[in-house]
């Protein structure tokens, strides 16, 4: 894993560490929403929502539209995929460990057999 990936991941995790931000992302999974639309279900002020959106935008998890007032927030998939890949790395590590374990078991079984003969 390159330092660059770690850096991106660290931003992503940081953004995802907050439960409100995760909820915001879950809402955005259904489509673009404005700050006003996002503020409503959370019972939050617009500046508070804007602050969360800024963190999410910085982490590359969302993009904001450039349409003057409205600036709808839209979900971005790439950083989430990097998190998925990071988790997937654990699976890969186990698969490769198991390959080695399989080879090792064959070796010791052969040794046992040879010493029995």
């Amino acid at each position, binding site marked *: 894993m390159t330092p660059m990936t*770690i*850096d991106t*991941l*660290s931003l992503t*995790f*940081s953004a*995802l*560490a*907050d*439960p409100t931000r*995760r*909820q915001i*992302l*879950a809402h955005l*999974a*259904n489509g673009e929403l404005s700050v006003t639309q996002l503020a409503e279900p959370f019972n939050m002020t617009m500046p508070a929502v804007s602050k969360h959106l800024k963190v999410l935008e910085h982490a590359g998890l969302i993009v904001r539209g450039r349409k003057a007032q409205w600036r709808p927030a839209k*979900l971005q*998939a790439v950083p*989430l995929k990097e*998190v*998925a890949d990071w*988790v997937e790395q*654990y*699976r*890969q*590590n*186990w*698969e*490769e*460990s*198991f*390959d*080695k*374990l*399989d*080879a*090792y*078991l*064959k070796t*010791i*079984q052969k040794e046992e057999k040879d010493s029995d003969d």
Partner: protein
Amino acid sequence: MDELKERQIEVSRTFDAPLEMLWKAWTEPKHFMKWYGPKGFTAPTCEIDLREGGRHLWSMQSPDGRQMYFTGNYKEVQPMTRLVYTDSMSDAKGNVMSAEMMGMPEGAPVTMDVTVTFEHADGKTTVSVSHVGHGDADHAGMGWEQAFDKLTAVLAKG
């Protein structure tokens, strides 16, 4: 978010070897050191205090010589059946590294709960490993992993 399964990694493999051998491979350092770690990695350190509450400390060394240590405690030790332990990255002495120390902010999953089950049938042994990660920030409310599962499901549809 009840409908969401906790995010897990599950890996299982059937080995052409007796159950006892697999149990030893997981619980005795001289065997464990021979296979643990991805391709090209070695496991130069391995301490196992095999009892509930007992500690493990082992390492993986990458082909370019970097060593990573992992430590944790056994939560369940059922001989030939089941092992449950925690696993976190640590320094060489077994001091757990925080997310910040690894260059990850608070909330990144630092500790894994690892469950290993052993099943024996027809002279073969199946070992299943399940990994559940939890970050410090996940104690309250929905875990980021669950949120992430939901998002990837939605993204996959779109």
